[in-house]
């Protein structure tokens, strides 16, 4: 067996529409960390919530892994699992869009790049949606836009906070303008959510770019991010081409956004569940606190 097969492929998977260098989970028993180059063991990586034990690099997680990470055990109930994309333009570039979709489905056991449903986080009921980068780079087409919209509508109906874990390479180019218009659609429903007084928390994970970052992802009441996630509108390569120079290290990373006032907090994965629970409890207390009985001070 060639030595190289032990190492993660440098080439990011997914279609070309992803922007930036999203780092995939290494496979094999052990491999070199894509960030610090040190040897890491799969088992150890999994035990550490897909965070490199050496350098703290946060690898991407699947939707299922994230839901398990933050929601109370057994509380998640999925909705809209069968909603899926069609090929509205008859798009055939280097390969037909239908084939891209088929392959993504085969590789992920998902029908689309976002999973949503009801759950509880530290005993608070929520509607939660999670994007999965493995599915066509979690690009936003009509089906993703519809599911995000349905998640927000579910939160309005249930009168409970909406939590969205965002990740996306941007627009689903193969759906043309229908894809772009999902930005308008998801933003419009978030406006409704706000007018209904429903708290909305988004968590930006690596990478959150393009149309998703310029729509629902940045419209939350509270915007959190995982450490060092790539977050931005234009991809770094496009910017470098435009300005004709290399971007500084850390540009468009979570820490850069926090410094520029675009984020509320950067939250390490190991603290995510608890932090979300605390925030939700502040924004949407589960039950009215009983008035203290007279004379007693707690």
């Amino acid at each position: 067996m060639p030595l190289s097969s032990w190492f993660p492929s440098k080439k990011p998977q997914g279609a070309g529409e992803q922007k930036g260098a999203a780092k995939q989970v290494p496979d094999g028993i052990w491999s070199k960390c894509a960030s610090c180059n040190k040897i890491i063991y799969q088992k150890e990586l999994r035990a550490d919530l897909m965070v490199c034990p050496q350098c703290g690099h946060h690898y991407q997680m699947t939707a299922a892994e994230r839901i398990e990470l933050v929601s109370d055990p057994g509380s998640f109930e999925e909705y809209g699992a069968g909603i899926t994309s069609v090929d509205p333009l008859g798009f055939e570039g280097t390969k037909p869009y239908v084939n891209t979709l088929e392959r993504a489905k085969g590789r992920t056991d998902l029908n689309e790049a976002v999973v949503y449903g009801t759950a509880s986080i530290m005993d608070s009921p929520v509607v939660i949606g999670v994007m999965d980068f493995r599915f066509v780079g979690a690009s936003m087409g009509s089906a993703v836009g519809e599911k995000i919209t349905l998640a927000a509508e579910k939160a309005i109906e249930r009168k409970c906070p909406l939590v969205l874990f965002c990740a996306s390479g941007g627009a689903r180019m193969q759906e043309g303008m229908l894809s772009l218009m999902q930005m308008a659609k998801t933003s419009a429903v978030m406006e409704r959510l706000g007018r209904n007084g429903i708290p909305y928390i988004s968590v930006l994970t690596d990478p959150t770019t393009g149309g998703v970052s310029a729509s629902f992802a940045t419209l939350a009441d509270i915007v959190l991010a995982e450490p060092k996630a790539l977050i931005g509108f234009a991809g770094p390569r496009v910017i470098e081409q435009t300005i004709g120079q290399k971007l500084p290290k850390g540009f468009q990373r979570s820490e850069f956004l926090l410094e520029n006032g675009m984020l509320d907090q950067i939250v390490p994965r190991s603290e995510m569940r608890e932090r979300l629970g605390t925030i939700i409890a502040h924004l949407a207390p589960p039950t009215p606190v009983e008035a203290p009985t007279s004379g007693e001070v707690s």
Partner: protein
Amino acid sequence: MGKYAFEFERSLVDLEERLEFLRNEAADGTDETASQVDQLEKQIEKLREITYSNLTPWQIVQLSRHPNRPTTQHYIESIIDDFVELHGDRVFGDDSAIIAGLGRMDGRSVAVIGQQKGRTARERVQRNFGQPHPEGYRKVLRVAKLAEKCNLPLITLVDTQGAFPGTASEERGISQAIAVNLAAFSSLRTPIVTVTIGEGGSGGALGIGVADRVLMLQNSYYSVITPEGCASILFGDSSRAEEAASLLKLTAEDLTGLGVVDGVVSEPLGGANRDPHWTAWELKKTLVAEIDALVVSDSEELVEKRYQKIRSIGVFMTEQGETIGSPLQMPDLVFP
């Protein structure tokens, strides 16, 4: 001489230039040149028809970028009376890639916003080629809120290759600035009509483009990504933009078919640049009619209708296997 021409219109423009030359000669007045002029005119008319009546998507993209194509400023000067420009986002600065202000159209006060690419080389640089920064979108929001407050119909004219992809844009939160406009426009309690007059480039266009009525000039395009960007992703070669332009379904005709666009404003044969005044007149007629139809609605009803319109855009399959929305073509090839 040496008028700007794309390759596909080169031979036509050559003939037109020759005609101009002959006309000058004919002014001195031999019968021979007069009859030559006659003949040439007929020939040109035919060729013009052939050149422009079945434009490919890529040719439309080219026309939409014609250096002499009328800009937002041209339309404002042509159809808006007593225009008062409003500057600045009140937070960071004034973005000259976007013009915003108040004026009167056909006797009615309106607010007008549009990206301005610039008409001369110097103005283009000063306007950053119509590619806005976050403060541009925040200026838009401020003026849109003013329109809402004073019940002024809002007209937006889209003409940009996209929001500016630079470091300052990212530092100042271009994503958030666009997102906030998408949300705010969706619930703005005043009529909004948007017209893509040239290039409708992605989120940077949509950032001023959420509306009750979405219109396009005949030779404009609206796309999720520039044909060059798409070609570079698909084929690793931005020079294959012509192919990408066909794949993206970015013309007014295709987008009407997809339910993204509500109406098309005619241009003279050969494009708006051939008769900017005629085009402005057409645009004005359309805008006046659209706004007349919208102002009668109660604002609550207007916002609800706009929301439902936006809510329903998209083509996908439900859990029950039903296709929602209308695919553009080849329904038999739709994913099973």
